[in-house]
């Protein structure tokens, strides 16, 4: 059984990797297995966690959960063509709930927190000592303020990017590009380690070639 599981894992792993060469039956098989089993996995998980765990075990304490179930049921009315339009109601609920929630969330966490965090002194006596002492810190805080400011100018919609305004927006996009470069550099590193893990599985756990 242990041998079987190991070979199955290796077989599927190689099947996915074979996609790099080209689309082929081996990949299609791995893909079909993946889709079928993972869809089943998620349905079962949703069933036990949400339907049983949250609704069935909870409605005695919270009768209001029936409203959720009713909305869910309305969703199923899509299957009846004549009254299928009723399924828009639960969708409308979801759109309303998502918009309402995120409006306040983003206002607080994205706008207010970030604006407040940007407010920092351009230079300060504390730079003379401390671990970050030196011109790096001064340039650093200047860069943060200028970068945030010009970045916002780049996103400004109601003015053409021309003249001084255009130049400022261009500085803004420079900062945004550096941000992207930094994320790229960082992400590349951890992605490589994923591959190392898979190859270690194939050559080590499966074939026993490496220690």
């Amino acid at each position, binding site marked *: 059984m242990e041998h079987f599981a190991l070979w199955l894992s*290796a077989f599927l792993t*190689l099947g996915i990797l074979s996609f*790099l*060469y080209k689309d*082929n039956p081996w990949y299609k098989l791995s893909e079909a297995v993946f889709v079928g089993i993972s869809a089943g996995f998620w349905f079962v998980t949703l069933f036990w966690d949400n339907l049983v765990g949250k609704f069935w075990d909870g409605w005695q304490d919270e009768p209001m959960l029936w409203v959720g179930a009713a909305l869910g049921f309305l969703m199923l009315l899509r299957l009846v063509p004549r009254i299928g339009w009723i399924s828009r109601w639960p969708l409308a609920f979801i759109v309303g709930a998502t918009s309402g929630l995120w409006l306040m969330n983003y206002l607080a966490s994205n706008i207010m927190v970030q604006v407040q965090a940007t407010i920092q002194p351009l230079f300060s006596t504390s730079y003379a000592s401390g*671990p970050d002492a030196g011109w790096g810190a001064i340039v650093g805080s200047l860069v943060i303020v200028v970068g945030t400011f010009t970045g916002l100018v780049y996103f400004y919609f109601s003015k053409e990017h021309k003249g001084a305004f255009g130049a400022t927006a261009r500085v803004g996009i420079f900062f945004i590009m550096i941000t992207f470069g930094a994320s790229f550099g*960082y*992400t*590349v*590193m*951890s992605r*490589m*380690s*994923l*591959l*190392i*893990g898979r*190859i*270690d599985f194939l*050559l*080590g756990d*499966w*074939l*026993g*070639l*490496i*220690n």
Partner: protein
Amino acid sequence: MSTRAKELIALGAITLFALSFYLNKVWGRGTFEFPTWLSAVVIALIGLSLLWILVLTLKGRLIERRVVFVYVGFAVALPLFMSFSQKITISPEVYQLHDALMELPAGSKVLISFDYDPPSAPELQPMAESIIRVCFEKDLKVIVMGLWPQGPQQANLALEKVFQDSAIVAKNLQYGKDYVNLGFQAGNEFVIQRMGSSFESMFPSDYEGTPYKEIPLVRNVRNFSNVDFSVNLSAGFPGTVEWVQIAVDRYGLPMGAGNTAVQAPVMYAYLNAGQLEGLLGGMSGAAEFEAVAEYQAKGTKFMLSQSFAHVVVIAFVIIGNVAFFRSGRKSKLRGN
């Protein structure tokens, strides 16, 4: 020969290769390692072929993606066969974690939370293994748990690995007395918060179903105040940030952390503020810790692959750009 025939032959070769080596493994033959001269030859070959790609690209022939893929595959796979003594510079935060563990008196309880899943294992598993090993060598008691569903399983894999070493086996450590796996509990940061008042309320039984009160190691562990040190191995949410905010800030639990390379930069703020006593970041962190603990294992080995892979990526960026500039920036090579 038709493409189809070639493909079939390749498939056959892969199967043969796999079968032969698998049987080799089953019969208990050893592993392979390149001698130094071979490693040098391999590295030289990789370097030369990169040059060749540069020449090709300069001539205006963009090599196929699949060649790039093969490169990455080799750059990651081949170093796993090599054993080089790498010059590893050890960061202060790695020393700090090691020192924190070494300073604990024998018998101290260390809580290790495994907050990651298999995809992040290449980075975090080597850390887990060497940290557990250090704990056992120092006769510290280890309590493991997980805020990610697959965390406790990763913990068991790490424990298994550590117990393959005869020096550790000789200590005759017992489950429940010297180490315990409390398992997974859903609820993210709320689990940490509740653990602040009672471990037992979150882990009524351990991974194997033994009731909390019947486990000698934790019978008297009521909450964080009965734990002497903790290590958090984390690949995202919930993870080190939550542990610091709740367990460290509110309950004063001393804590060190191991993080994936993507996450690590965020943690430096906590490190500088003294909320973390040591930090291992990504594969290099794992390798450095192994160097400090003087036990070379997977982290060191993987680090070589990682460096190779970086170099290959950097080489490809350079090659692409050299070609791009040589062709006067109006290359036909497709780009954005």
